[in-house]
């Protein structure tokens, strides 16, 4: 399974990469929402781990655009934001999972399994 990581933090991308690359193939790393959309279109990943607070374009907007063009896209928000309204916005944009930072490896892998299993 190919996973795209979208997070503006180099530190957080490296942390996620460490967790994911044992089990999955990393399909690319994006630093903002625009790059996430571009890399999604180029690499056709099976899953996107999407941060919310990013420069240029935030993760919820990027998720909306990805799921508009590919209704089958699977996106998990991976964010520090724990606001109920943002969670609802993420659902509206098409996200299927939501992980709040700081996270532990088991919770990330469990959320991925849940989302992939549908």
């Amino acid at each position, binding site marked *: 399974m190919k996973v795209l990581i979208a997070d503006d933090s180099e530190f957080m991308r490296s942390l996620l990469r460490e967790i994911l690359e044992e089990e999955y193939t990393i399909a690319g790393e994006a630093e903002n929402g625009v790059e996430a959309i571009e890399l999604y279109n180029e690499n056709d990943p099976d899953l996107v781990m999407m941060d919310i607070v990013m420069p240029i374009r935030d993760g919820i907007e990027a998720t909306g655009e990805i799921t508009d063009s590919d209704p089958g896209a699977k996106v998990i928000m991976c964010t520090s934001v*724990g*606001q109920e309204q943002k969670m609802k916005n993420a659902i509206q944009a098409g996200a299927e999972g*939501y992980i709040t*930072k700081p996270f532990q490896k088991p919770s990330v892998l469990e959320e991925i399994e849940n989302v992939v299993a549908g």
Partner: protein
Amino acid sequence: MQIDIDSLETYNRLAREGASSAAESLSGLTGIETHVEVTNISLMAPADLKYEYLGGEFSGVRIELDGALDGETVLTFDEAARETIADVLAPGADAGMRKSSIEEVGNILTSGFIDGWADHLDAVIDISPPTYLEGSGTDVLPAETADADEQVFVFRSRVESASGSLDFHILLVPKRESLVEALEPTADDAVPFEKLEVFNEMTKSGAERAADNVTTMTGLETDVEVNRMRFVPVDKVPAAVGDQRYVGTVMEYTGKPSGYLVILFDRPSAEAVVDALVPMETDGEWSEMEQSAMKELGNIMTSGFIDGWANVLESSIDHSPPTFVSDMGSSIMSPIVGRMARSQEHAFLLDSMIRTDTDGVFRCELFALPDEAELREVLDDLLVERADKTHVDPDEVF
């Protein structure tokens, strides 16, 4: 109890003028120039007041107030100021005379501090004979706060001299019922005191979540030790933060309310958290990865801090990606204050200190500066019964 925010501005001015009067008196008595560094009004738990006086020996006077303003004033000098005053006013005198000189100076300064309040209230404020104080921490706190559970308003001023040899603090803690009368609202947009208390509690919950996030990410045990809401002239915010060097992050948040959140670690604490996140050899400069780790920590702490506001208010608050900062506290705050000063004269400065007791190293301060007018709207909209709804589990939404 209703609080008229505009009258807080008036009382902040009175406290500042009173402190200026006290500073002038002291300069007149000693010949050493002094100035009011900062004056503010804080809403805080009495237990947090002890941090005012940690790490030093102080002496001064405690004076009880009665009449138009009922409560207590404590004026304290640090050790250097105590020596300076005694040397100038009672050179070569015995310990008893030196103590008496401190007592009398404290008495004179406190009277000068209180006179403006009486004039403003057009009433009499009786003051008790001064009680001499000496010690640190709770030894020199207003007695009124010793066993109090409820949050209290504290009017505080810090007066400094250029040489650092004549610094003193004044704390005024009015009794709540006395403050009710003094702050009797004349405007329609008065805020219930209960809402200010609740918002302060929400802020403390946010700081606790931010502290928990630090612990989860770094393994360093942390706790929120001080939480207070200060009302301060906006141009005095940099002085309120101080000139110590810090490392941390600045975030702007937009929504309801909008504002800034500044997270500052002292250097050893910053090095400790970054080392826990990205252990690597460094040459004293902050590498890109280290800055990224610090920014991500700031990002996660910010969410922990402001998400509770959004959830209680059933609104949404966005925040910008963090900016890494390494500078003096006052220099970090100055550009923020410059932007805020375009639209407001006073600011609510929400200040939480995260510390650890385990090794004495970790110290981090969170300074939130919400837009004053928007905070008034937030307080107006705040439903006290939703105050505990700060946390939302994503699993319950998804």
